[in-house]
């Protein structure tokens, strides 16, 4: 997206199709949407919800990366893959999902990009305005996030993961200026500066407010354990409980946080989840992410800064603003 981009009128077909949503976000936002290019790395129950939402909303194009062959496990939370081996057999997740998504809105270009997300280079990323990563290792997420940040154009970065009944979204819009709609109707120009993913997971825990979502800490423990053990996301299970809890203790000691801030029951739920996604939670996370991407493209409305958590156990959907470490650290 290069700033303005709102010239040219919508066609009659677009106006008819998008009537109800134009009434929500306006013609200008709709035009910007239709010029935005979105990349999604990792097709699962959560990202397909997101893809569905933005294809319906009418983004310019959507590219999918996921070379994994479809297996029966992929059918669980996925409504884009028909449960018929003769259809999905021998084909990648991206290919099968692409085919179904195209159907949702003929005005959106949906395509497959092949390759390993952990090797994505910056030049390739340059084609996109929005990059969404899911089901990737911390290493891959950091790598893509840094690459997005190195480009001269602003590429918005999102990481999203569902662990059964829990979910996390990370947002890095770098510098984002937008029109804020104040309660009461008047508008104001706002600008936000985001920390990178590396920064947002490096802040000392005792510097964070006491009420910070417990999931923030729990996800860091899990991710730290996976990284050091060389595990892929979701491969750590209940059988690793003892080792993960001892990692929790180490990290809490190091960052001066009481272990009670990361309840054992919560850690166990995340471990029991493995790769399982709870479909209602996928719908909620994919819905929130869809809205965030629309806000970021249209430069309208307060975006999430910079984490979002949902836990079906208490039903709360919470934003957390996690700052970068203070410059004096180190």
């Amino acid at each position, binding site marked *: 997206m290069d700033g303005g981009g709102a010239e040219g*009128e919508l066609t009659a077909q677009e*106006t*008819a*199709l*998008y*009537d*109800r*949503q*134009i*009434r*929500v*976000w306006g013609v200008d936002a709709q035009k910007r949407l239709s010029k935005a290019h979105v990349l999604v790395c990792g097709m699962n129950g959560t990202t397909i*919800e997101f893809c*569905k*939402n933005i294809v*319906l*909303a*009418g983004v310019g194009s959507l590219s999918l990366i996921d070379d994994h062959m479809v297996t029966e496990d992929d059918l*669980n*939370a*996925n*409504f*884009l*893959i*028909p*449960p018929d081996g003769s259809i999905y057999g021998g084909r990648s997740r991206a290919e099968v999902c692409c085919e179904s998504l195209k*159907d*949702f*809105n003929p005005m959106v270009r949906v395509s497959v990009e092949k390759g390993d997300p952990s090797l994505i280079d910056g030049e390739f990323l340059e084609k996109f305005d929005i990059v969404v990563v899911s089901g990737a290792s911390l290493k891959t997420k950091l790598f893509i996030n840094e690459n997005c940040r190195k480009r001269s154009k602003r590429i918005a970065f999102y990481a999203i993961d569902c662990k059964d009944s829990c979910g996390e979204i990370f947002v890095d819009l770098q510098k984002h200026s937008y029109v804020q*709609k104040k*309660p*009461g*109707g008047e508008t104001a120009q706002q600008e936000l500066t985001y920390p990178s993913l590396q920064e947002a997971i490096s802040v000392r825990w005792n510097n964070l407010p006491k*009420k910070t979502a417990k999931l923030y800490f729990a996800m860091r423990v899990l991710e730290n354990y996976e990284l050091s053990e060389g595990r892929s996301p979701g491969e750590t299970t209940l059988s690793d409980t003892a080792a993960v809890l001892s990692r929790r203790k180490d990290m809490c000691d190091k960052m001066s946080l009481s272990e009670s801030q990361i309840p054992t029951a919560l850690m166990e739920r995340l471990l*029991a989840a493995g790769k399982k996604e*709870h*479909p*209602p*939670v*996928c*719908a*909620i996370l*994919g*819905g*929130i992410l*869809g*809205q965030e991407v629309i806000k970021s493209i249209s430069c309208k*409305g*307060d975006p*999430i800064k910079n984490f*979002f958590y*949902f836990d*079906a156990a*208490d*039903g*709360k*959907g*919470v*934003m*957390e603003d996690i700052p970068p470490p203070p410059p004096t650290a180190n």
Partner: protein
Amino acid sequence: MAAAASSEEAVKAAKVLMVGAGGIGCELLKTLALSGFSDIHIIDLDTIEVSNLNRQFLFRQSHVGQSKAKVARDAVLKFRPNINITPYHANVKDSKFNVEFFKQFNVVLNGLDNLDARRHVNRLCLAAEVPLVESGTTGFLGQVTVHVKGKTECYECQPKPVPKSYPVCTITSTPSKFVHCIVWAKDLLFAKLFGDRNQDNDLNVRSNDDSGSKTDVFERNVDEDLPQYAQRIYDHVFGYNIETALANEETWKNRKKPYPIYIRDALPEDAVQRNGSSRDHKNEEHEPSATVSLGLRNPQEIWSLADNSRVFLEALKLFFEKREKEIGNLIFDKDDQLAVEFVTAAANIRASSFGIPPHSLFEAKGVAGNIVHAVATTNAIIAGLIVIEAIKVLKGDYQNYRMTYCLEHPSRKMLLMPVEPFEPNKSCYVCSETPLVLEVNTKTTKLREVIDKVIKSKLGMNLPLVMVGATLVFEDGEGLEPDEAANYALNLEKVLAELPAPVVNDTKITVEDFQQELKCSINIKHRDEFDEEKEPDGMVLAGWSGPVDKQVNSNGDKRSVPSSSSADDIDSTAEDIPVKPGMKRKLNEILESQENFDALQNQSDVGSSSAQVVEDDDDDIVMLDEDPKQGKKKRLQ
């Protein structure tokens, strides 16, 4: 964990009813199927339209015109072929969906878009003792609530805003907002010109006081050609009528005076003649459209007075040229392009008389058609929350029932805010047995008025039956003997005191709807006088917490023009929405933003608006404040 296992079993064994296969319904059916539900029944009356396709993702262009319930079923079976989905292309108010029908389900999930159907389903769920999960969305806002008889409040325990109505004189004489001009153009002018002429219409209420000839100015004269007729109507409604209104100086003492507009002022003579003459052949193939004839193709554009005048003349002409057969029977429909064009132009010309800013066709269509603002994302989120709540209901996990608000502006960091449900309201006439009191003049009020104004519109009964003691004085519905029907029709026109079983002061009447299995007692109190302004119905129902009429203000006119238009609700509710004392301020504080609050209060789609936040204090649940009217409230045990 044991809980997870039992969730799966509960889901697998469940038989659920979904009402509505629209925006929320499509998302809900998908999420239910993915979550393991395998016996789903779904009712929806509607067929698919193009403007559904941006969010009702189970539907494609090729499905336009087909039953939503059926197409949704087929689409979901593609990814879950082994589950049972039973579609009903029908109205949920149909008598076949009776209490027995509802009883077969473990939970009912609503994805509806209107108050009427929601109230009806609420009653059937109460009667069948089936838990109800209710939902609604508008734009980025939404909510999910749980209603379980005896455990939580029912859908009707709290007052609901009903579609707004406007005082007649605001519409006929003193519009101050664009929506007033739309209501005038749609409900008065359009209805007068193209609808049933025998219907009461207040269009000329202020202008034909002069005891002139009885001929209807809206009738086309025999020797009049169409352009002449269209110009005469234009001059009459925008010129003559405004001048007549101006003559009543009292009205304009504290108001800005409107100015009359005649066609000769709005359009040069030659432009009037040429109007529409550029019509090309394309117009012959499509629906007649004034904007096509006139080359005004951008629906977002705000037309000048001249353009509005051209559209007005052209649309009127096209109705008589191309759709003459329909004239006399037309009812405004937001999907009728020519009707929308006519109403937009008429509303804009009137707006310009009164110094009200004009609107584009796109915007005017939204106001006139009461179009709900809808996006896929909110529907997906709400559907997810419904399924989470439905699973709790199936497991009987009632301590964890929540109503959840989906907000546009975060409140206490929350975009999704769970709130503990209320206990049932003990004075709710729907879910408790509190008798109602009706003050009415029993000597002058006909039974028909009580049935229309109270029993049907306020109590929301569909097919009511009225008993006075043991005497049946009225029954509605099929299967009546002709002599019975004639007898009831006769009773309808009788005043209360003269019914076969007279209704006078202190008479107790019983009203009942068999389908809804709702029965109420009403104690009658006779009263001679009613304040025309404050009590426009000529009767007052007490002990009733149902929908509240959000009449803006009543300018001394006792009647009001009911309107489905809701476009300016957001700015008007701040002062006029009725909520229980103390409630509004508190809820407002909880939501931290007037906008969240207003919008939630206002959602035509959304249910109950009272709330108590489940505050997170190290995961303890604390009730933030108490509803002053309901006294001390305990946590659900």
